[in-house]
């Protein structure tokens, strides 16, 4: 069995035990509801989940920023939030901005001085591609540049374990790809990277392992390939008079959702399904065919809870 960087068992955290400004589902009383997951040492692990699934909350628990109500959380073999851990754990938090009025170089100088085994600043600038804007004030940088500075700050202490909370949110494709490369390089240097995302593409592009969580629970974890397969299929969106019940009864159809006057149909075999639909309704209109969104994949995963049991082995 591979050594683990992080093990959590049956984490529970009530919303009313902490207050923050992030969106939360009013109906749910628990931010984490028996979350159990294992992150192997080395490589990149993606924690996949929709907004409010508990990804950020989990990372805060792992960093010791939040205390869980029950359950156990071991980071690098020590209880989460331990003092000695801090030298070896880096994090890039969602919405954790850096001071506007300092330049990247000034900021990295400060952060590096926190760590005993910090990277040389020149190397950080090189590694994260900051040289073009390293002396500009943080306030004047683009979102992508800011994210790279935050990333550089997160790895300044040469951590063994790095949390990247939604590192690519809000970035255009190019900026996202630059960051992906940087994260890959980091992982190749032996660090364990845990990133949260709600983009399947992030997980696809980067992660060796993927853990899917929803409503404070792990619903799937395994290699990224395994997880992707579970959520595979095609989404057919169209306007039709065929009843949902009829569509659901078709053999290739996995699930049906209405979206206003349109209907989303998740199926295994789009060609066969389309033929059957056109036979039933020749006037079918506004037709689009696409790969499923993560939301649709999660829906699917939830519908197939029994299947996920097998994946968690």
């Amino acid at each position, binding site marked *: 069995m591979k050594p683990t960087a992080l093990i959590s068992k049956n984490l529970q955290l009530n919303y009313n035990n*902490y207050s923050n*400004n992030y969106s939360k589902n009013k109906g749910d009383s628990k931010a984490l509801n028996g979350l159990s997951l294992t992150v192997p040492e080395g490589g990149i692990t993606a924690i996949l989940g929709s907004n409010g699934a508990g990804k950020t909350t989990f990372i805060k628990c792992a*960093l*010791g*920023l*939040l*205390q869980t109500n029950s359950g156990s959380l071991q980071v690098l073999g020590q209880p989460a939030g331990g*003092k000695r851990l*801090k*030298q070896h*754990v*880096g*994090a890039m*938090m*969602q*919405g*954790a*901005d*850096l*001071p506007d*009025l*300092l330049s990247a170089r*000034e*900021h990295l*100088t*400060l*952060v590096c*001085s*926190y*760590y*005993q085994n910090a990277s040389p600043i020149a190397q950080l600038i090189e590694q994260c591609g900051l040289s073009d804007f390293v002396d500009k*004030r943080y306030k004047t940088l683009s979102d992508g540049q800011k994210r790279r500075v935050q990333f550089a*700050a997160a790895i300044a*202490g040469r951590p063994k374990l790095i949390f990247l909370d939604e590192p690519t949110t809000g970035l255009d494709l190019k900026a996202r790809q630059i960051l992906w490369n940087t994260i890959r390089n980091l992982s190749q240097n032996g660090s364990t990277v845990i990133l949260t995302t709600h983009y399947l593409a992030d997980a696809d592009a980067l992660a060796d392992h993927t853990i899917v969580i929803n409503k404070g629970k792990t619903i799937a974890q395994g290699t990224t390939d395994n997880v992707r397969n579970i959520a595979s299929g095609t989404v057919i969106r169209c306007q039709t008079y065929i009843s949902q019940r009829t569509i659901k009864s078709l053999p290739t159809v996995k699930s049906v959702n209405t979206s206003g006057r349109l209907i989303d149909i998740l199926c295994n075999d789009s060609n066969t399904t389309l033929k059957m639909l056109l036979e039933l309704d020749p006037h079918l209109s506004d037709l689009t065919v696409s790969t499923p969104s993560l939301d649709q994949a999660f829906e699917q995963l939830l519908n197939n809870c029994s299947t996920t049991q097998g994946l968690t082995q």
Partner: protein
Amino acid sequence: MMALKNEIGAEILKAIRAPEFIAPTLLMPCAFYALFSLVFNNSTNNSLYLLATYGVFAAMGPAIFGFGIGIATERDRGWLQLKQIAPTPAYYYIAAKLVTTMLFAACALMPIYLIAGFASDITLTQSNWVSLFAVHISSAIPFALIGLSLGLMFSTNGAIAVSNIIFLSLAIFGGLWVPAFVFSSWMQTLALFTPSYHLAELALSTVNATGEYTPITNLLTITMMSILLTVLAIWAWSKGH
């Protein structure tokens, strides 16, 4: 230690790069003092009173705003979280802010002293100037504790609003602008509950101007208030997590 010095350096850079911080903290006390002691004043005794109280006022600005708004902003922007994740102790951050506050308070005090000495013709012995400066600069500490609590309890916008209200209230009710003894009796009673009033009394006693209470009483009150404010700040800090 390098981390602490860097932290202070970073705080100084942030402060001097923020004109919206510099203007009110450095210029306002000195401008107010010049206005009240030179333009509206006609007795020398009064300028000495104003020197003692406006010095407290000058130290109050950087302390309340630097801590209150500064910490609220950085907390809102998640910067504080990164500090908590970092291996350096949290007090580095507070200490750096306090040192910066005191440096700015010193910068705010110097023009006031110069106006007092060379325009209002106030003369004090060397030891009186030094002890007055010591009282003024130390009065940043209780105000910084107030600012810290505000910064930890309120969001950026809330902190801006509340800091201003607290700042003005402490200035007015503490008798920093207009002597407390001209207040109505309920306002005088209120003054007793402000640290600014006791700090002003302490400053007055160092320049041999008579206060209402003994310096020991003032000092004990300030110490007690500071302890309460520290408890409040610790509570706010832990709740912020």
